[in-house]
């Protein structure tokens, strides 16, 4: 199940430190005490204090009220999760793709394309190809500027690019730096440009991740890796958001086309597991979505 680091402070402190320095968590207890009677969901609790964490909650109710700020996996998580399955596939080599021009595109499409560009940058940040990485930073910045990103955040992007090009920021530190920057870009867009745009940037990154992974898995038999593409709840999250968006309701053609492809992906996501044909189909749908950008 999970490694356990709960309990007393000293145990927690040592476990965190141990985990972070690579020795793993020293715990090992099971935290969900077998045989404990379920107690009230603390989230429903109003003024009543739960002396211990509820061992059982109404998951659907928690989901329905749950925030989604940390729901969607980062693009780079696809690569890490892929490694965890034992698949010998390097997505970074596939992320080198081309950017699509954003001039004249709707803000929604620019947001999706910006998400792809940020995803490509995050995925390739530690490859060491300085010229290509600089170009990807510039491409992501162009998308962010096109969306009306805050001048201070754009300046930070410029600073990261300058520091990287000058060798002040080395490649193996760039990934962490860009993680923080990507987080702040999302926060800036969410607060200053609009939650809808911030979500579309996130959606673009997710579509790119699915596209790269499904392309890499084409013709390969790896059930664990294929399971990484089986994300019905993430798909439903983005699909619901897009359908409720103002452009969709106004009949925006590009957004409508993206929704149509996502609905086809939804039909696949409804299956218990994905076959090789399903993965090829997923790749086709994500390719079709990217072609709309």
């Amino acid at each position, binding site marked *: 199940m*999970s*490694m356990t*680091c*709960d*309990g007393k*402070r*000293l145990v*927690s*402190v*040592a476990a*965190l*430190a*141990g*985990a*972070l*320095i*690579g020795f793993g*968590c020293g715990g090992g207890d099971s935290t*969900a005490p077998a045989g404990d009677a379920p107690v009230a969901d*603390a*989230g429903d*609790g109003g003024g009543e*204090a739960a002396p211990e*964490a509820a*061992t*059982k*909650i109404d*998951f659907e109710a*928690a*989901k329905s*009220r*749950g*925030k989604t*700020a*940390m*729901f*969607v*996996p980062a693009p780079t*998580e696809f690569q*890490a999760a892929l490694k*965890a*399955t034992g698949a010998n596939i390097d997505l970074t080599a596939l992320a080198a793709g081309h950017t699509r021009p954003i001039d004249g595109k709707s803000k929604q499409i620019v947001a999706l394309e910006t998400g792809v560009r940020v995803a490509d940058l995050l995925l390739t940040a530690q490859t060491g190809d300085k010229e290509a990485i600089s170009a990807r930073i510039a491409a992501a910045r162009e998308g962010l500027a096109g969306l009306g990103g805050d001048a201070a*955040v754009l300046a930070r992007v410029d600073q990261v690019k300058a*520091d990287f090009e000058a060798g*002040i*920021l080395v490649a193996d530190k760039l990934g*962490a*730096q860009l*993680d*923080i920057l990507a*987080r*702040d870009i*999302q*926060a800036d867009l969410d*607060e200053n440009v609009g939650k809808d745009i911030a979500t579309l940037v996130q959606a673009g990154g997710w579509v790119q991740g699915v596209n790269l992974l499904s392309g890499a898995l084409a013709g390969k038999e790896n059930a*664990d890796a294929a*399971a*990484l593409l089986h994300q019905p*709840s*993430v798909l439903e999250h983005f699909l619901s958001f897009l359908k409720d968006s103002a452009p969709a309701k106004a009949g925006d053609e590009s957004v409508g086309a993206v929704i149509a492809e996502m609905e086809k992906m939804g039909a696949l996501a409804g299956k218990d597991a994905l076959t090789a044909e399903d993965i090829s189909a997923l790749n086709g749908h994500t390719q079709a979505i990217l072609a709309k950008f």
Partner: protein
Amino acid sequence: MKTPILSALFAGTAAMLSFGLQSPAPAQADAAGVTKCLDEMVAGAAAQGRRLRATDSDSTPAKEAVDYRLTLYKGMTYVLLGCADEGVDLDLRLYDSAGNLVDKDGAEDNKPFVFVEPAATGEYVMQVLVYKTDKATNDFAVGITYQY
């Protein structure tokens, strides 16, 4: 009381922050302290090769849980991090899609974390709970880091 190993970790974090991992002042001034606190924890994780998925900040009265939907992958290790103001007892709990408690940090402090290796790829819920406080509402920041 901090153990020496954690103190050393955070000393490293401070050095890393000075190297350039600072985040700009958060938009919400009242959440600045908890966001800074979380960023220090994130930087410490990054220094050990962990990547950041996302963070969030919010505020809540005591004993009213805030739920977060998470998608987690089997085979990965995640550290869920939280930070609240000094003197606040902040707890984190993680539940699987069957609603079962997977792990928790219920220690009486303001910097909880949960280290988890998911048994299955899928959806989870993280609950954030301010368990003890003397304030009407409490700012907190949470984040999720991952590594393989």
